[in-house]
């Protein structure tokens, strides 16, 4: 084995993982995006530290210092309530990244379950699940999300105290967006399952008496992981966009908790006096979303085992 590896031409990658890593590293935009996202994540995590270092408080309003220009005290200036814009951007990043990542994972779980069941069992179940998926894809999602975001949780039987707490607005948006974000994963996983199901090692496992559950979890799922990772990465961007739209409309993350979306809610009124307030949060959303999309694109090229070198 080692003799064979030694015989390979110098510099040729030896394992599949190494080949994937090399293909990924060749995708410069994806690598830059990953670096940027890691940096952004760290900055968001360190928001309380940054706050202390800069000597500002993201939630402290100061009506005597509204719309302050960028300066030594507030590096990006202050908003319409005199709060420090830079600190709020960092806290907003925490929310947007937390919602984007967790909702993408939940959506991927739903999509994987649906895709693998449809692909493995085929027949009527497959037809039903895929028509259902197509139905969800073709729906006008945003108006329906608005309805879901507007419902009163108390009427669903949640205690009033809980229904009105700040945390609930975060959890509910995660649930709402993941309910609709699973469709791409489902389609990809189904397609992959169809291919893997026909492979010999699966037939061998069936012959040895493995049940459907074991086949799906042990034999198919690990082999379908690449498309799941790619689709999940690509969906993070979309989910952050949906979160920002709902928060912008006042139906997502509720102030005073900052999110990039709700920081823009008042921007339309302040646009004449302070246009930069409308620029920064949106720029953060844009940069984050495009970075996730580049990353997904790079992963797609790197993880596809059929890709030519």
């Amino acid at each position, binding site marked *: 084995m080692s003799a064979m590896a030694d015989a390979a031409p110098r510099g040729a990658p030896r394992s599949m993982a190494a080949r994937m890593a090399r293909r990924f590293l060749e995708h410069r935009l994806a690598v830059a995006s990953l670096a940027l996202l890691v940096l952004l994540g760290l900055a968001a995590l360190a928001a309380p530290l940054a706050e202390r270092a800069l000597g500002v408080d993201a939630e402290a309003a100061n009506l005597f210092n509204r719309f302050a220009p960028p300066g030594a005290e507030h590096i990006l200036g202050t908003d319409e309530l005199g709060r420090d814009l830079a600190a709020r951007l960092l806290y907003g990043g925490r929310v947007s990244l937390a919602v984007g990542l967790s909702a993408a994972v939940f959506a991927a779980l739903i999509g994987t379950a649906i895709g693998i069941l449809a692909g493995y069992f085929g027949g009527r179940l497959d037809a039903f699940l895929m028509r259902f998926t197509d139905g969800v894809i073709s729906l006008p999602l945003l*108006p329906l999300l608005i309805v879901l975001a507007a419902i009163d949780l108390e009427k669903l039987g949640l205690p009033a105290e809980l229904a009105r707490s700040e945390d609930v607005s975060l959890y509910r948006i995660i649930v709402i967006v993941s309910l609709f974000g699973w469709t791409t994963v489902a389609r990809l996983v189904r397609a992959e399952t169809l291919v893997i199901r026909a492979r010999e090692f699966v037939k061998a496992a069936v012959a040895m008496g493995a049940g459907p559950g074991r086949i799906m979890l042990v034999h198919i799922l690990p082999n379908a992981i690449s498309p799941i990772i790619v689709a999940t990465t690509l969906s993070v961007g979309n989910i952050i966009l949906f979160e920002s*739209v709902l928060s912008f409309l006042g139906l997502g993350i509720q102030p005073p908790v900052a999110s990039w979306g709700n920081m823009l809610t008042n921007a339309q009124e302040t646009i004449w006096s302070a246009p930069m307030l409308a620029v920064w949060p*949106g720029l953060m959303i844009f940069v984050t979303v495009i970075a996730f999309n580049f990353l997904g694109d790079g992963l797609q090229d790197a993880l596809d085992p059929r890709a030519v070198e």
Partner: protein
Amino acid sequence: MLRFAAVRLTESLIVLLLVSFAVYGLIGLMPGDPIDIMIQSDPKLTPADAERLKALYGLDRPIVERYGNWLGAALQGDFGNSRVTMRPVLEMLWPRLGNSLLLLGISLALSLAIAIPLGTIAAMRANGVFDYTVNLACFAGFSTPPFWLALLAIILFSVTLGWLPAGGMGPAGGTASLIDSARYMVLPVGTLTMLSVGSFTRFMRASMIQTLRQDYIRTARAKGLSEGRMVRSHALRGAMTPLVTVLGLSFGGLFSGALITEIMFAWQGMGRMIYDSILANDYNLALVGLLFATAMTLVGNLLADIAYVWLDPRVSFRSLEAGR
């Protein structure tokens, strides 16, 4: 062909029915139902009174029964009155639907008019500088938050340059001339187009690259056709056929984009009507708006499915039915 269309139509109607039931149930869960509002307006109302009022309006009946009543009336064309204006909701819907279709139709036509040539040229020069630039622009297009794009457009064209109105559908008072109306359309149409053109272009490029590898293209090349002629008379049709399916599935997304655009630019379309009616607890209007929006995307989807089979002679309706 007819059988295929009938099956798909039935499926669409079932989806519409399911959505109507789900939305009907969800809307009842929104804050501020008629009883809530009565309680707010009359603080002396006791809980027992509230229960009696609920019974009076039939709100104590099970949800399925209430939905059944609503559906029965709706099927006869009675969708109820708006709580805010007291007018029949259908009467309020038609002009809004027209405005939305105008916005959507123009942006869609514009998106395709940009995406098809751009994607084709990018595919012909795959991995070149032009292809790379177009790809970057596409990523930027579908990574931009729609409301932010609208804000930036307003900042640039209305606040800074003062070229175009920031919102509305015409100057206040009096009738608008055609040029005036067109001026109010530039920003909403432009925003919506920028949001949708990226994914169409990328799909067109991928589809064209696939097509250019086909045998009949090699034959055309071997005959000595120039690249441009070959693409125009042979490859374009083959590459555009899959675009039709993507188009069908994108109507829902387009409508979502239109909703934001309409809100940002005060365009009196259906998306804005749905949003406003939800905020104003105008249940009947919200319900009918959501149903028509869903019906619109389903019809778009259906037409795209039929067009797909009609455009691609290799796919027969029978094989599509058998495949499902």
